């Protein structure tokens, strides 16, 4: 694992929004720090699971990496190259070089496919953009992609509305794979699917990773699927990374009190479960009024005075377990 340099290296990534009505009638507002000083890295063949509750900034992190939103600060290195300036400069050959190797799979495949295009047209789009000189190979590649995700070649002539959710998500994955990426960002790829279909897609993702040697950034609030898919897990709370470690370490020995509460909050499908329960008081505060010190301290069962005043830094122990907590478990 440590032989190659990281596939993706995110350093101090931040995305802040100013809120309040803009324009002719300006009003006072505030700043939402949707993503705040987030750093992590990911190697070839690894899957980093990025978890947290809604509004914790996990999706904004992913969108910032792809420049779907413009980050406020920080750097993103992909295969060693600092990509954010390239996106910002917008020189088309450079942007395409990165886009072809860094792809995104969306949460809801019903929304992520152009309803007016056949599956073939949808899959042809990346080829048209990235392989303009290999026109003769397009059709064969489309057939190959459909096979890769478990669909039939004749599905190319169908429209998205003729498919079930699971099949549409297969198409979404095929599109992302079209131009041989190295890294896929998977944003809740199974949460909109029926429960009996989820396992198929999760298995598909794992087999594709093994076959194609991909890196995955897997974003989800469904911790069970994270445990299945990921090799590493990063936990976010209010725009901050609070804990990050290898998957089994996080699930077996969580150290941040938020991670512990999050894990214990998930009901286990076993009526005799003796799962320890750590009840959290209150709700996640508004990102506009983020508490001073550790952002989690108002809800933390182990908060001390220092937690209210000093914001803990993310520090790594000798086992590579990274943690931002003054008083870890």
């Amino acid at each position: 694992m440590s032989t190659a340099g990281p596939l993706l290296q995110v350093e101090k990534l931040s995305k802040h929004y100013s809120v309040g009505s803009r324009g002719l009638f300006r009003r006072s507002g505030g700043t939402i720090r949707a993503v705040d000083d987030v750093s992590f890295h990911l190697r070839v063949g690894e899957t980093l699971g990025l978890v947290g509750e809604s509004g914790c900034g996990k999706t904004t992190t992913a969108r910032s990496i792809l420049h779907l939103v413009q980050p406020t600060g920080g750097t993103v290195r992909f295969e060693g190259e600092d990509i954010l300036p390239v996106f910002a400069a917008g020189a088309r050959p450079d942007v395409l070089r990165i886009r072809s190797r860094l792809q995104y799979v969306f949460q809801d495949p019903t929304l992520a496919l152009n309803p007016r295009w056949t599956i073939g047209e949808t899959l042809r789009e990346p080829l048209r953009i990235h392989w303009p000189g290999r026109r003769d190979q397009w059709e064969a590649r489309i057939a190959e992609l459909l096979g890769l995700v478990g669909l039939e070649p004749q599905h190319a002539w169908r429209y998205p509305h003729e498919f079930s959710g699971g099949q549409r998500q297969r198409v979404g994955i095929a599109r992302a794979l079209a131009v041989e990426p190295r890294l896929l960002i998977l944003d809740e790829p199974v949460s909109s699917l029926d429960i009996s279909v989820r396992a198929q897609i999760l298995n598909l993702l794992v087999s594709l990773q093994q076959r194609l040697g991909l890196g995955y950034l897997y974003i989800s609030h469904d911790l069970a699927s994270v445990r299945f898919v990921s090799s590493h897990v990063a936990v976010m709370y209010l725009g901050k990374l609070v804990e990050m470690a290898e998957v089994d370490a996080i699930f077996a020995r969580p150290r941040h009190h938020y991670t512990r509460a999050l894990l214990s909050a998930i009901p286990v499908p076993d009526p005799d479960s003796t799962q320890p329960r750590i009840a959290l008081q209150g709700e996640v505060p508004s990102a506009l009024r983020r508490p001073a010190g550790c952002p989690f301290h108002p809800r933390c069962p182990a908060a001390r005075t220092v937690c209210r005043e000093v914001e803990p830094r993310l520090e790594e122990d000798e086992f590579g377990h990274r943690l931002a907590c003054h008083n870890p478990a």
Partner: protein
Amino acid sequence: MDAAIPAPLPAPPVKPPGIWRQGWYRFRRNRGGMVGLGLVLLVVLVALACPFLAPHDPGDQSAMLRGGARAAPSWLHPLGTDRMGYDVLSRVLYGAPTALAVGLGAMAIASLVGIVIGGIAGYVGGLLDEVLMRFAEFFLVIPVFVVILAVVRLFGIIVVGTPLEKVPHLNLLTIIALLGLFGWPPIARMARAEFLRLKQAEFVEAAICIGATKRDILLRHILPNALPSLIVLVALGIGGAVLAEAMVSFLGFGDPKAISWGQMLYFNYEALKVAPWGSLAPGVAIFLTVLGFNLLADGLTDAFNPRLRQ
């Protein structure tokens, strides 16, 4: 990647229904929509074939000379003659091309302006969006009809003595242009909403991730998906424009050289008591045309926005 060279795609099976064909299937089941389509086709057909359908020359006033003005319907004049001695049926048939020209012309202008302004506002967003939408709101709230009357009247005086005076049907063209220029705000608002929604749609973000150009995104992804909602508004707008022209003409501000239903009402309203057919026939023609476009729009909403019914 797979070592084996995969087979190329097989030939397409029977052409599967696309979104337009799907829409047509749904449209066909809407009785109202089909009636609307029938009415609209009827108007179009009449407009194209009026020289062959009309029993008399629409400019023929000879009945007046024979003392046959305001004659009740007869075999010679199926809908009677009006107070100027014209054959009512012929004038009504010849009114169809004028009505369509007004409706289509005005909505062509309105759609162009509306889609461009609304599209820019929705796609670019920010301050530009706010400014453009205030502008649209302004146009939406001013008493359009009142302003149009004044402009038609005053413009008629302004052009006297300029080369513009010689343009054929200048008055009608002015009305079309005005209806177009004042008719864009609803289209712009819808276009803005659609562009804004589609800009954030996941399949558009997917296209960005793939590296599609802005042009591709606007023309291949956003515009085609925004069209169904806009077409509904355009269909409604055509009916509205036909009605507006009829009202302008009814008040006597129409084009004296054009044959229009509103003009017929204007000339014959005084004789309503003695020759009601002169007013009823063009009135019914306006009604059927407007109804046709309204029903068509209703059917299109049903066909393309099925989530509204279900």
